[in-house]
């Protein structure tokens, strides 16, 4: 793994992505110590343009709240939602896909039909419905995003497992009488991991976008500030005050771009054929 990280840093896109992600994580973790004031607090007169007052470097919104503080605290919510919902999606998707691919037959059929059931519903529409029914809160948002993002994981893992299952070392393990779970966890999954890691890094980016879209529509957790909420709330006054929407919009762009670069970089690094070419 350490080797993998080193190789990722040698990939120019991957390097930029990692730098962006590290900065975002530092902001999210240390932000509240640097800015103890709640981002909801009305600190100045409304609609202060950016770069005019040192106390509110990026200006204030329609209620006089500090846009910069909103960005800092918003990073927490965006990253948290992105990581946790991806983790939940992996916890659901990986075992399902692995079982479907390994056992095949009826189990495969049943699990894949179940997966398709979720895949046939447009994911964003399903997320909106789930959050609206459960009342918007950080838990319902994470849950909804996880529910709409696990099916691709399951399908990917199934495909990998299907091909690995026929390898000789797996056959050998079966012949020596290893248990199914041991074979799946120790023989197959470690070898199926690379594409899952790539997918996961892209899923974090997608989850951040989904959370922003939900918040933009007013379905965010009303007790937590997030970038999507800031864009949504500022959208209505965009003709008077562009900065309220533009800065959080840029934050979303940069964060999603960073994660995508990492995903691309990982893909390059983990793909054996590409690796040879790049050397």
């Amino acid at each position, binding site marked *: 793994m350490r080797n993998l990280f080193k190789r990722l840093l040698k990939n120019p896109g991957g390097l930029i992505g990692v730098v962006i992600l590290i900065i975002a994580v530092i902001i999210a973790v240390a932000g509240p110590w640097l800015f103890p004031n*709640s981002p*909801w*607090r*009305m600190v100045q007169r409304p609609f202060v343009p950016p770069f005019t007052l040192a106390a509110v470097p990026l200006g204030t919104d*329609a*209620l*006089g709240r500090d846009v910069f503080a909103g960005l800092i605290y918003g990073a927490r919510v965006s990253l948290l939602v992105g990581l946790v919902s991806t983790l939940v999606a992996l916890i659901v998707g990986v075992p399902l896909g692995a079982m479907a691919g390994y056992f095949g037959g009826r189990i495969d059929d049943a699990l894949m039909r179940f997966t398709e059931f979720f895949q046939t519903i447009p994911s964003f529409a399903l997320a909106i419905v789930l959050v609206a029914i459960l009342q918007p809160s950080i838990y319902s948002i994470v849950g909804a995003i996880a529910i709409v993002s696990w099916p691709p994981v399951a399908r990917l893992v199934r495909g990998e497992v299907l091909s690995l299952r026929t390898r000789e070392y797996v056959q050998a393990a079966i012949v020596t009488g290893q248990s199914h779970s041991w074979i799946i966890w120790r023989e197959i999954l470690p070898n199926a991991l690379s594409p899952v890691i790539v997918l996961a890094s892209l899923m974090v980016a997608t989850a951040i976008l989904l959370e922003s879209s939900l918040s933009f529509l*007013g379905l965010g957790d009303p*007790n937590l500030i997030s970038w999507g909420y800031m864009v949504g709330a500022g959208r*209505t006054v965009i003709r008077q005050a562009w900065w309220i929407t533009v800065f959080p919009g840029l934050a979303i762009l940069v964060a999603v771009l960073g994660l995508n670069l990492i995903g691309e970089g990982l893909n390059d690094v983990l793909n054996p054929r590409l690796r040879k070419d790049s050397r």
Partner: protein
Amino acid sequence: MLKAISLSLLLSCSFGATAWAQEPKMGGWINAVIQPEPPGLMLAQIQNGPTQMVSGNIYEGLLRYSKTLEPLPGLAESWSVSDDAKTYTFKLKSGVTWHDGKPFTSADVLFSIEMLKQTHGRARTNLVQLDKVETPDDTTVVFKLTQPFGPFLGIFEVGSMPMVPKHLYEGTDYKTNPNNNTPIGTGPFMFKEWKKGSFIQLVKNPNYHVKGKPYIDGIYWQIIPDAAARSVAFETGKVDVLPGGSVENFDVPRLSKVKGACITGEGWEFFSPLAWMWLNNRAGPTANKKVRQAIMYAVDREFAKDVIWNGLGKVATGPSASTIKFYTDDVPKYPFDPAKAKALLKEAGYKGEKVRLMPLPYGETWQRWGEAVKQNLIDVGFNIETIATDVPGSNQKIGDWDYDIAFTYLYQYGDPALGVARNYISSNIAKGQVFNNVEGYSNPEVDRLFAEGANATPDSKRKELYEKAQKILVEDVPVAWLLELQFPTITNCKIKNLITTGIGVNDGFRDAWIDK
């Protein structure tokens, strides 16, 4: 705030001064926005805001009300009250006809009252004290009451008691009567066409009973679902009238600066929308009077007025808006004072229990208001959790008393007996309904004052009772009063005399004319 000042300057000078000076000109069409699209136009059955706005041109009531809420002649040209205040005699205008040519008579009034008692919730409550109605001749209607009812002359506005044609509705099923789709009234404009999702067209009534009126040829009520598109339609001149509430608040300052735009806050005196927060008096921290008072001190209402409502409106002093009869500001005052709020919370023994706050899901303005109030409350030590809901969810939670603090606003209809008492008397506590005494406040003394106030004569006696009730209520803080709302009407300045009464746009465009 500069914005607020310039806006109020506009308010005071644009209407009034210039509007009356010129001779009205005939002809032309007015394009007005209606938001949202009304569910129907049969005013006796549907009383949604947009229905009242459109149908106020088609139907008429017996009386209209000035900006100071004095009754003005409508379909009734004069009226008198007996000495015991139990008999009201109305003289109807003669020569009034329905849009289909049939004459309007006292029989229509009698029928309308019978029909409204079945179809119109507020009319039914307003008429509880009505004993019987007599019609000695075609142009006389006599109302006999069981006991004196002070606000009786205040219940004849078109939205509260529209006159409906007996010859079209008698003996039919009101709900399915085909005339509901092609409403027939006595008003200055006649229904022509309703293209769903696009526009409602009304044309001039050539036989209108006020000679020479209306001045304009007709009205197009444009249906434009998107708020930003409504603003743009006004800016580009596609529509001339934006009635109160049809654009978002933050667009108001920008639109009022559009060349040739006039803005007024007038025309809502009869309704006097008052915004407050329900405080659950039954359970949780808000059951404690000191906590409720702390909320009043903690919330910066001037800020809300200046920033969230762009300087429009007025900080409320108590349960009555200042435009309502018998209003008094001689009550305990709650200025913005966080230190005092903190002290009260300490006295009350509040220890950071979670308090749920439910903003009104009516769009951006209300969301921002909820966020500002939440921050105010957190600043004095409350532990606030915002609950996000949609309109049905909010109504259900409030009706089931499942809330701690919840935003609302209600109309007050000119008289404390019609629009104020309902939210504070204990006989009006009924689970499952939204606009009654949902806070669960119960005070026998207040009950008595409101009950006597409704039936006392003369007005000086009523004034005394209601002023006493207001003082007690403001001391007890059953709900946290916020603002007297003002919904500005924005018009193209060439449209004159649009708003002439306290009912505003809902009173129809009978006096409006276009300066070409």
